[in-house]
């Protein structure tokens, strides 16, 4: 592009060499910027510009020194020889009209510390929530130690911690219905006659819903019962949905579909997938 390609107002401020007012005025502009006296033969627009900028750097106008009293007070209070020395000064000292809370600049160290603490707080909260969830799940699975399980039983209606007599009693009274017994407990698989007489259906073998022989790790392995199809999704649900659940589980199976107490065949090896 050359000077003849652009109209004067198309590229304002662009110094076209050779154009009047182009680079040739630079010494004069430097004289204005350096506050030096212009030569008398300088163009009138340069003189006008110099006069305009002289007004810009003129004396103080009304109101421009209005803050002097506040600044002097701040100097007396926080200046080099003040008792407070170089302590930080509140921002509203010089401008009482300003709200300190609105204009106070946050301390960077404190702000970064707070920012750094936020993820730690979230992480701790998440860990506590996850731990609590695990404890509740373990309580309903009956996998907690005895005292803790008793506490869970009392507070969130988790299964009571089984003892040998309790499990035997439950086996024969049918109270263990829908609850998995503690794997550490080994109920008597051959109840006595006295116990069997107490069963609701005389002569039938009491059947807890989960075989005591099935360890927790094998709990999901149940042989398919004839007529019940393969393991549906609800077999993975706890039979007792908890105290907050007032209805029946969806798709409740007939009793014969529930796993029996007979010693099942050895589970599929835990190493098989």
């Amino acid at each position: 592009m050359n000077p003849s390609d652009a109209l004067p107002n198309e590229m304002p401020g662009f110094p076209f060499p050779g154009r009047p007012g182009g680079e040739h005025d630079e010494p004069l502009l430097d004289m204005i910027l350096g506050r030096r006296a212009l030569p008398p033969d300088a163009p009138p627009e340069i003189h006008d510009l110099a006069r305009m900028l002289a007004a810009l750097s003129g004396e103080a106008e009304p109101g421009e020194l209005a803050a002097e009293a506040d600044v002097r007070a701040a100097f007396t209070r926080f200046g080099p020889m003040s008792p407070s020395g170089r302590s930080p000064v509140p921002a509203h000292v010089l401008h009482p009209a300003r709200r300190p809370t609105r204009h106070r600049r946050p301390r960077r160290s404190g702000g970064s510390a707070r920012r750094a603490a936020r993820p730690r707080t979230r992480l701790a909260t998440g860990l506590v929530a996850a731990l609590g969830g695990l404890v509740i799940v373990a309580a309903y699975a009956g996998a907690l130690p005895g005292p803790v399980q008793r506490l869970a039983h009392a507070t969130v209606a988790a299964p009571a911690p089984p003892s040998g007599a309790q499990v035997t009693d439950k086996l024969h009274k049918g109270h263990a219905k829908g609850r998995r017994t503690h794997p550490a407990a080994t109920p008597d698989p051959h109840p006595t006659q006295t116990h069997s007489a107490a069963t609701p259906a005389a002569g039938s073998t009491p059947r807890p819903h989960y075989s005591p022989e099935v360890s927790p790790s094998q709990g999901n392995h149940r042989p398919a019962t004839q007529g019940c199809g393969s393991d549906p999704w609800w077999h993975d649900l706890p039979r007792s949905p908890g105290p907050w659940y007032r209805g029946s589980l969806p798709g409740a199976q007939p009793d014969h579909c529930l796993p029996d107490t007979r010693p099942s065949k050895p589970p599929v090896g835990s190493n098989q997938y």
Partner: protein
Amino acid sequence: MIGAAFSVTLARAQGGDESAFARLFRDIQPALLRYLRVITPEAEDVAGETWLQVVTGLAGFHGGEEAFRAWLFTIARHRAIDAGRSRARRPTSQLDMEELTERYLSPDAADLALDTISAREVVALIAKLPRDQAEIIMLRVVAGLEPGDVGRIVGKSAGAVRVASHRALRRLAELAELAGVTR
């Protein structure tokens, strides 16, 4: 500009002389306010914060008058940037820079005569320049800083500052002519 008496005035102010500090304030405050009016709508507040920082850091300053001005205007620029960031974070009504410029800076056309033009009216004209050019002009003309000092403040080379200031002056001459200030 205080001139030859600056070093004595500064030393007295650093020794706790309030009247010496007031002299420094009266010498620089008008230029500081005019500069800040070009770059921020909160000029008075930012000027107050600037002086606050000058008060607390005055004992540690070493240098001449130009270095003192460069230090003070650097502080002012940083505080203006902080104010801009704070303003961006605050939910405020739509009162943007253009409106503020119209309210506080725009001169009445009838008042724009070269013989009677005030600093505020010239600031209004300079505020119409591109932001970087306006800031450079204010630092060169109002603060009286050399291109090297201005370049260190605005992050440009001295040559770039010189070119930008020339362009700004040419553009300012055009604006003044359009506004009827000059012939």
